[in-house]
């Protein structure tokens, strides 16, 4: 169990992730339609397609590989979620530049840094009921973990827990802010999409 995160790991993860994201696109569109513009599934499908296209030829440098993945989400669509994911991935890319392997225990810190960059990019704070809250909870849950399978389960548990905690609060940023009242009782679509990413990594 002393594997490490490499470009090869990323490439294999994409192989599982892409088909899963495509299979849940309709659900994500629906969730986004309730309090947004209903395109979140499209965003994830487009991202998945771009990821597939690069999965086979990721550079060995983990930073460069992560940057390639980030670019998959800045092409094609201009959705908030895609840009935020790209922001998070680029932050990780910068941290990993020049390394071909990274310890699994570093993942928690990478997620922390991503949350900071994404908050900066989108102007949201923790507690605003966005994808940030699930990533932050995941970062907490992964501290010191070094087994990828166990990490995925821990991340999912933290994410489910966050979804539940936030369901009855209002959305405070993005398109959903317009429907703050309506959003009470509904899951944030971006949080749901993050859960599906984790499911896809399983």
């Amino acid at each position, binding site marked *: 169990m002393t594997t490490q995160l490499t470009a090869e790991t990323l490439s294999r993860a994409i192989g599982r992730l892409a088909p899963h994201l495509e299979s849940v696109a309709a659900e994500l569109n629906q969730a986004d339609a309730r309090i947004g*513009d*209903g*395109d979140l599934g499209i965003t994830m499908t487009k991202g998945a397609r771009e990821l597939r296209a690069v999965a086979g030829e990721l550079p060995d440098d983990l930073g460069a590989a992560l940057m390639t993945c980030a*670019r998959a989400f*800045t*092409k*094609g*669509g*201009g*959705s*908030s979620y*895609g*840009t*935020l994911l*790209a*922001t998070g991935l680029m932050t990780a890319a910068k941290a990993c530049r020049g390394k071909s392997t990274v310890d699994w225990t570093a993942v928690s810190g990478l997620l922390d840094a991503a949350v900071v960059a994404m908050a900066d*990019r*989108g*102007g949201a704070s923790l507690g605003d009921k966005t994808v940030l809250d699930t990533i932050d909870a995941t970062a907490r849950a992964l501290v010191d973990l070094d087994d990828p399978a166990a990490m995925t389960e821990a991340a999912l548990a933290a994410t489910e827990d966050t979804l539940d905690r936030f369901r009855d609060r209002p959305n405070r*940023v*993005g*398109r959903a802010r*317009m429907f703050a009242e309506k959003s009470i009782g509904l899951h944030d679509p971006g949080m749901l999409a993050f859960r599906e990413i984790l499911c896809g990594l399983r």
Partner: protein
Amino acid sequence: MKKILNDPYRYVDEMLAGLTAAHPQYYVLVGDDRRVVARADGPVDGKVGLVSGGGSGHLPIFTGYIGPGLLDACAIGDVFASPSVDQVADAMRAADGGAGVLSVYGNYGGDVMNFDMAAEMLEFEDIDTATVLLRDDVASAAPEEAERRRGVAGMVYAFKIAGAAADTRADLAEVTRLAQKAADACRSVGAALTPCVVPQAGVPTFEIGDDEMEMGMGIHGEPGMWRGALRTADEIANEMVDRLLDDKPVEAGAPVSPLVNSLGATPPEELYILYRVVANRLEEAGAEIVMPLVGRYATSMEMTGVSLTFCHLDEELAPLLQAPAACAFWRV
């Protein structure tokens, strides 16, 4: 709200193909995925490049305002959807004439993220960038929260004034200062009577009764301040003037340019009926009316409704507003 189109997913691409084919003297399509339009004779060497962009469905905003004395390039998203980071970055590259790039656009969350991220990419390429956000819609947040306000038709003034400033070959800091001053000088409010249909969605953006209007509604159907029975032209004009002057009073003798704008379906006949009241009220308030604009300057496709914008000018801004400029939709 019937639409003449082919494949809804090709709406924007076909629109851009037609736009650039009809007006090759102004517009040229650039970029990998043909979602960036640049000035046909650009970039202009040594001039600050002006970029805008956002979701489609608002012609002449944004793309229409590319031309001499106006914008240099735009990144164009699907209807009411942000362009991608890569598209924005391509627009910035297309606008760059070596003196840096200023982005001028409306304060919408997705656009802000994508423009910011594209600007970071450009910095890597050693291109200086700056940003001016339009936040002129007084209905979209209270004065205490003015930072959260959305940008609407005030963009037209910011494009025009920034364009004229860039034409003087002022540097990026100075063009940015003037564009920001123009943005700060604008106040707008809109009222919607009927919705529009986003092609890919195929359904109206909101529902509203046959005899109703909504004051303060945003150009994508964002909720406004009140919904009620359709009022008379004079009542609507007076309420709009009140709201704008409450937010930013006119200084006696100060030049003000009013823009009575159709959101799309509302015909110019009705805009002129409104303009009578707007002009009278501005004069009563002591303003000197400069270059009034009446027409379709910032729309939401076939939406019925109007918006009113006041641009509060001074000796510095007024000549820039009146400087020559040309595009397929507007000539000054």
